[in-house]
């Protein structure tokens, strides 16, 4: 139990919370980067490797297109269906192999990114699917390359949807990061678990919860705002 009457109580609390928030930003930030990178690619491929899609025949082979599509679909579904708490435990050996340890903020990045990628991939898929086929056709009629169509038509037109998907993903990752934190991943989850739960300090618990609520609010509003500003429909 922490002594609330300790003259350094509030200063310590602030220090601990800030350090936790810093770690959370780091884990969420890096895993978000990986999530966007791979999730975007996976989401785009999921749509475009379908029959009659832009990449229905990558390298001239329809079989390859079908294979990529099936494999991605299965992998994404698996990723989405395992509850995060189990995924986290399942990934411990892999994490250890990758970063040498399964404890600490850097180790927390691995399960977060692996949970985030399929989540974001589905949101990207939905966004890209909503781009009218006629736009692709118009670009083709102008003699555009597949890369141009991918970047300047499919992804560019899906940007408002992607912005919304991104904020939803950030919010999800913040939530997951608290879970990883509780089992040794550092960050705000760690603070809440160690100080709030194990040492019975309602102040710590409360501070973490308030901060999490604020962060979620902030990112969701940012996403909504960006989507509104970017959409000219």
């Amino acid at each position, binding site marked *: 139990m922490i002594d609330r009457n300790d003259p350094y109580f509030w200063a310590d609390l602030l220090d601990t919370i800030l350090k936790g928030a810093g770690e959370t930003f780091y884990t969420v930030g890096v895993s978000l980067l990986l999530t966007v990178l791979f999730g975007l690619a996976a989401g785009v491929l999921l749509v475009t490797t379908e029959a009659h899609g832009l990449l229905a025949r990558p390298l001239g082979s329809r079989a390859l297109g079908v294979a990529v599509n099936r494999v991605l679909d299965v992998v994404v579904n698996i990723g989405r269906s395992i509850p995060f708490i189990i995924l986290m435990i399942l990934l411990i050996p892999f994490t250890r192999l990758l970063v040498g340890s399964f404890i600490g903020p850097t180790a927390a990045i691995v399960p977060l990114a692996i949970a985030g990628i399929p989540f974001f991939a589905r949101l990207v898929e939905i966004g890209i699917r909503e781009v009218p086929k006629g736009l692709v056709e118009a670009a083709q009629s*102008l003699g555009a390359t597949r890369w141009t169509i991918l970047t300047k038509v499919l992804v560019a*037109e899906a940007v408002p949807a992607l912005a919304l998907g991104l904020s939803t993903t950030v919010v999800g990752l913040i939530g997951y990061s608290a879970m990883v934190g509780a089992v040794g991943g550092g960050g705000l989850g760690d603070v809440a678990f160690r100080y709030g739960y194990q040492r019975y300090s309602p102040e710590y618990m409360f501070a973490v919860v308030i901060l999490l609520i604020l962060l979620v609010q902030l990112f969701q509003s940012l996403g909504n705002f960006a989507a509104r500003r970017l*959409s*000219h429909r």
Partner: protein
Amino acid sequence: MISVSRVVKSYGSGAAQVRALDDVTMSVKKGEVFGVVGQSGAGKSTLIRTINALEQPDSGTVHVGGRDMTKLAGRELRQARHDIGMIFQHFNLLSGRTVRANVELSLEITGAGRAQRRTRALEILELVDLRGKADAYPAQLSGGQKQRVGIARALASNPSVLLSDEATSALDPDTTRQILDLIRQLSKDLGLTVLLITHEMDVVKRICDSAAVMSQGRILEHGSVEKLLTTEKSLLGQALFPLGDIPPTSNAVVEITFTGMATDRPVIAQLARQHGIDVGILGAAVETIHGRQTGRTRLELPGDERTVSGAVADLRSQGLYVEVIK
């Protein structure tokens, strides 16, 4: 300029197979406006999409400006497409780009530099009378304005062919007329060859030099509009000049098609005077085609066979197109 030869295209297989194009042969001359009319499902869209190879035929060839579009792939195909603009029923503009940026897309694709893109985009927007909207987004435009952007985008890279797939079908009659006139004007000014498909006869009437009538994947008629109008049992003629059913009568019935100046002459009065026939007018339709009065009149000619054939011969000798219905 465009020449389609023996093109076959089927969709599906087995019992569900549809022959969207069934041995289609047609050609479009350089600089003309060519219309393809036909009902829904006739294969018009499929035909126009084979011209720029958005669709590959099962067999047959499609030549545009000397290139066989069915043989091209990759870079060569993309380059051939720079020379063929296309506009669409639903405009297909990028919602996230301004009008100017939409037009510039065409130039980004052909690889023009930044400054050149900007100048050319504004120049072509001027041509479609939309320069004032350069910085607006498509959602802020009316249908007619959106189609003007579509036209500007299609023409920005200076193509010699313009394809139009029902480009005015989503527009109201006034706007349709403006867009058609613009296409006609641009085709004249830029020497563009235009192939447009439509299910509206009005479109053919207003701007086409030549036309083809399609049904169930086949071309039923094909030729200059004037020639088609004076072809016996022409579907185009019947559709453009609907005279209704022939009433029951024991007398001979003929249909006269006027093109150009023949409309000014008092043909019927002359017929009555010179052949002593009591001419009855059963129906008439007049249209302005390319600014020329063109029409069809259905006449009832009482009298014996000799009188009637004499009258018909006389009409024909005046250069009129006469069809004896019964």
